[in-house]
């Protein structure tokens, strides 16, 4: 029943996302060729991007929470957002008008951040988390320096990207959707081991899990997914933190349910947030990261209180 409700919600939100924006368009009966173009060449690809990015962020969040044994972990906890942002702004410094170079910079920056964290992976979850927090502070400083040096025409672009921006995604939608599917399948393959890791490292090992190998795989997988999501849409907060918790409250703690529910739920939240971002101050747009926080946080808190 809950799965049916979740899938129905996805359908409804996708339809809503197609309909709303600067102009209301009936998705079942677009008025003319222009409306058809807006629906299928502008709004639909953007909705799919939002769905895939949201799903990837939620999956990464669920993985980081288990990897670090910390329910407050989220995809950017190890500094990947900071390094990706520094990379994106570096790209803007060379060519302030180039979205392409910004994406390349973000992707490269994300991976530099991941490689930096990998050096600390052998220290165990707590020290890796600590190293990640310190690295995040370092990347913030680098980012602040780059922003101070950035030509004025690049500043708006940089801030917009840093608060989440689905309007300039250069990654092909097919790549994002494929990544969504591959990430979910990889997650499901690892799901039994992830469940055992919820019991703590020693219990997991005693139940036959090679925890070191699992941690490495998980770190790589979660980081790669985060890098892709950041490259596609900038840094969008709260999806990776809130959605896995929400899905645990609704579907239980086992990953064979949490991961698909998060992949769908994360997509749903970002589709909703992006639809609202395109609509509330139309024709201008709000950064979608603001809306994920405004929608996600109260829903999460409500469910938390209700559960108690």
């Amino acid at each position, binding site marked *: 029943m809950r799965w049916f409700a979740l899938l129905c919600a996805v359908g409804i939100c996708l339809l809503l996302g197609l309909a709303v924006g600067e102009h209301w368009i009936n998705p079942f009966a677009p008025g003319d060729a222009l409306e058809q173009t807006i629906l299928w060449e502008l709004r639909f690809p953007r909705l799919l991007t939002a769905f895939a990015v949201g799903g990837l962020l939620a999956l990464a969040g669920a993985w980081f*929470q*288990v990897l670090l*044994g*910390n*329910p407050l972990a989220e995809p950017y906890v190890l500094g990947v957002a900071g390094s990706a942002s520094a990379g994106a702004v570096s790209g803007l410094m060379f060519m302030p008008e180039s979205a392409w170079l910004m994406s390349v910079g973000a992707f490269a920056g994300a991976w530099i951040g991941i490689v930096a964290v990998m050096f600390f992976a052998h220290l165990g979850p707590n020290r890796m988390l600590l190293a990640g927090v310190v690295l995040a502070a370092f990347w913030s400083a680098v980012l602040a320096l780059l922003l101070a040096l950035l030509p004025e025409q690049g500043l708006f672009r940089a801030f917009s990207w840093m608060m989440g921006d689905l309007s300039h995604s250069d990654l092909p939608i097919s790549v994002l959707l494929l990544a969504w599917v591959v990430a979910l399948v990889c997650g499901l393959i690892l799901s039994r081991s992830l*469940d*055992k890791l*919820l*019991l*703590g490292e*020693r*219990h997991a*090992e*005693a*139940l*036959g*899990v*090679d925890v070191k190998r699992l941690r490495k795989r998980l770190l790589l997988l979660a980081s790669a997914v985060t890098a892709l999501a950041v490259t596609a849409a900038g840094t969008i907060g709260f999806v990776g933190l809130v959605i896995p918790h929400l899905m*645990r*409250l609704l579907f*239980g*703690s*086992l990953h064979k349910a949490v991961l698909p529910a998060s992949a769908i739920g994360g997509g749903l939240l970002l589709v909703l947030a992006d639809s609202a971002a395109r609509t509330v101050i139309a024709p201008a747009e709000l950064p979608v990261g603001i809306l994920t926080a405004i929608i996600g946080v109260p829903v999460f808190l409500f469910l938390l209180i209700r559960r108690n």
Partner: protein
Amino acid sequence: MSVLLELSDLSITRGGRILLSGLGCTIKAGEVVVVLGPNGAGKSSLLLALTGLIPASGGIELQGRPLAAYGRDELSQSIAWQGELPPTEFGLTVRQRLELAAGEAGSEIETSAAAMDVAPLLQRPLGELSSGERQRTELAALMLRDAPIWLLDEPTAHLDLKHQIHCMHMIKEQRAKGRAIVTVLHDLQQAMAIADHLILIDGKSGAEYGEAKQLFTGNRLSHLFDAPVIRQGSVFVPNYGEKR
């Protein structure tokens, strides 16, 4: 009875401190070995080393093969470990906890839950339980493991009297079924009730192994714990009236 575990000249060092050295013993199917010693002596570390969770020098042979030759999954088929209570942050329920332990034995969850009095708690998250209820859940999870060797780290911790007795009966039943059980205990009466052999770890790198009836003496226990232990009838108890 077949030898399941064989330790030879085993030494464990943690944080630069030698916890124990020179321990040798054989552990056979259908026997209970109780590990006694003061806090911090290395009792839990010994169990972790036998599970392959921490390194140790010397020899550990499991069913005739060096422990290091076993893969993690293979090791888990032979050894079941009960230790610290698992974290509760992620909202696992008692049933889910038992499912993770059960593997192929999923159909026996109800039976083991009933045996440890956690059947009414199956749908409850672990975080809502008392420490005693969580400990009973861990023991129910242990009962679902088909491994021939059980390593138990204070199985009666947090348990009320009724469930301490339950736990002792369960250990005896498993011994009768041919399981080898190595368990850390602090209660001397419990240890006397079930031990076939003892491993005494004194916290000064010394370790001694022998038959329970030979090692259970007031002097030896007093020396081991650096605290007065006296005999009362057929049992040894701490002498609360005397302070060293």
